[in-house]
């Protein structure tokens, strides 16, 4: 069993398996996002209160979900790296951080734009928005911290610690709409109850969320592969790979 886990952590093995898996996730991402986009923009009925501006939900919610999930993944990868010294985990964490930051920005931007017709403001210092802004700063901090050290290993360890510490922000974001009196509406999806909106509205949302997740996996696999090539460039298997791809 330890042999299997050891194999999991091998950059060469990860490179091979991610090369095989990547195309599937790209295709899935493309199909899901295309379907969700067409359905959400063209076919979902307009909201009786917000009219058509509610369609922003189809980019805002997936981006927000991903922003949080990616941070959790980074924290888990950081833990795996620190505890079990598995370098691939750190490579994946390095690959994920910019993507997570972009997702957070997408959520903040689309939310701000949505706020104008809905709330009459681009911003308000309520719990969820503030916590998401803090998440964005955490991402930026992790990216900067990783690169701020002379030794790569030091940078990786510092970034891992910051990710693990910062992950406390995620349950704060998630439960902020329950704990505090906020402007931001409560969750659409929950594990236990039916969504408060009709199926023609939340089905495309679910599809978009799944599409974004597939996009995240595909892109992270791709970027992690690049990181592996960079770090393992002097290894024999990489050189063979390069020779064979002439």
């Amino acid at each position, binding site marked *: 069993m330890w042999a299997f886990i050891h194999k999991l952590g091998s950059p060469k093995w990860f490179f091979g398996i991610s090369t095989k898996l990547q195309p599937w996730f790209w295709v899935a991402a493309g199909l899901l996002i295309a379907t969700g986009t067409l359905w959400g923009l*063209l076919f*979902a009925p307009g909201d009786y209160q917000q009219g058509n*501006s509610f*369609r922003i939900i189809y980019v805002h919610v997936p981006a927000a979900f991903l922003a949080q999930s990616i941070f959790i993944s980074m924290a888990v990868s950081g833990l795996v790296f620190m505890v079990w010294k598995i*370098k691939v985990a750190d490579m994946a964490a390095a690959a994920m951080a910019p993507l997570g930051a972009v997702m957070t920005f997408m959520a903040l931007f689309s939310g701000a734009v949505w706020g104008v*017709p809905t709330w009459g403001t681009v911003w308000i210092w309520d719990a969820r928005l503030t916590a998401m802004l803090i998440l964005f700063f955490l991402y930026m901090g992790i*990216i900067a911290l990783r690169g701020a050290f*002379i030794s790569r290993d030091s940078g990786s360890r510092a970034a891992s610690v910051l990710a693990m510490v910062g992950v406390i922000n995620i349950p704060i974001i998630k439960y902020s709409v329950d704990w505090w009196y906020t402007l931001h509406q409560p969750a659409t999806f929950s594990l236990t109850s039916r969504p408060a909106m009709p199926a023609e509205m939340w089905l495309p949302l679910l599809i978009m969320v799944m599409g974004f997740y597939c996009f995240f996996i595909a892109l992270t696999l791709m970027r992690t592969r690049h990181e592996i090539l960079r770090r393992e460039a002097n290894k024999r298997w990489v050189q063979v790979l390069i020779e064979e791809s002439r």
Partner: protein
Amino acid sequence: MAFASLSEFLAMGGHGLYVWSAWGVTGLLLLALIGHACFEQRQLRRTLKRRARLGKAQYKSALNEPTSLAAHAGQRDTCNDP
């Protein structure tokens, strides 16, 4: 369909500016992410092939060519053999 015509679709019931700027920025960023990853891949290929051609296989890992802040993060040292 929720819209009777293309102009209605673009207008989004008066909320066109908001819907399209939110969707537009999101779409552009997603495309930029993909584009950057492809660019990174091409650049890596070129660099690794050049290295192989020049026969510099004795170099330590950590290629020093800067690509972007994100990709560059962690490329600091050249003495990082495990």
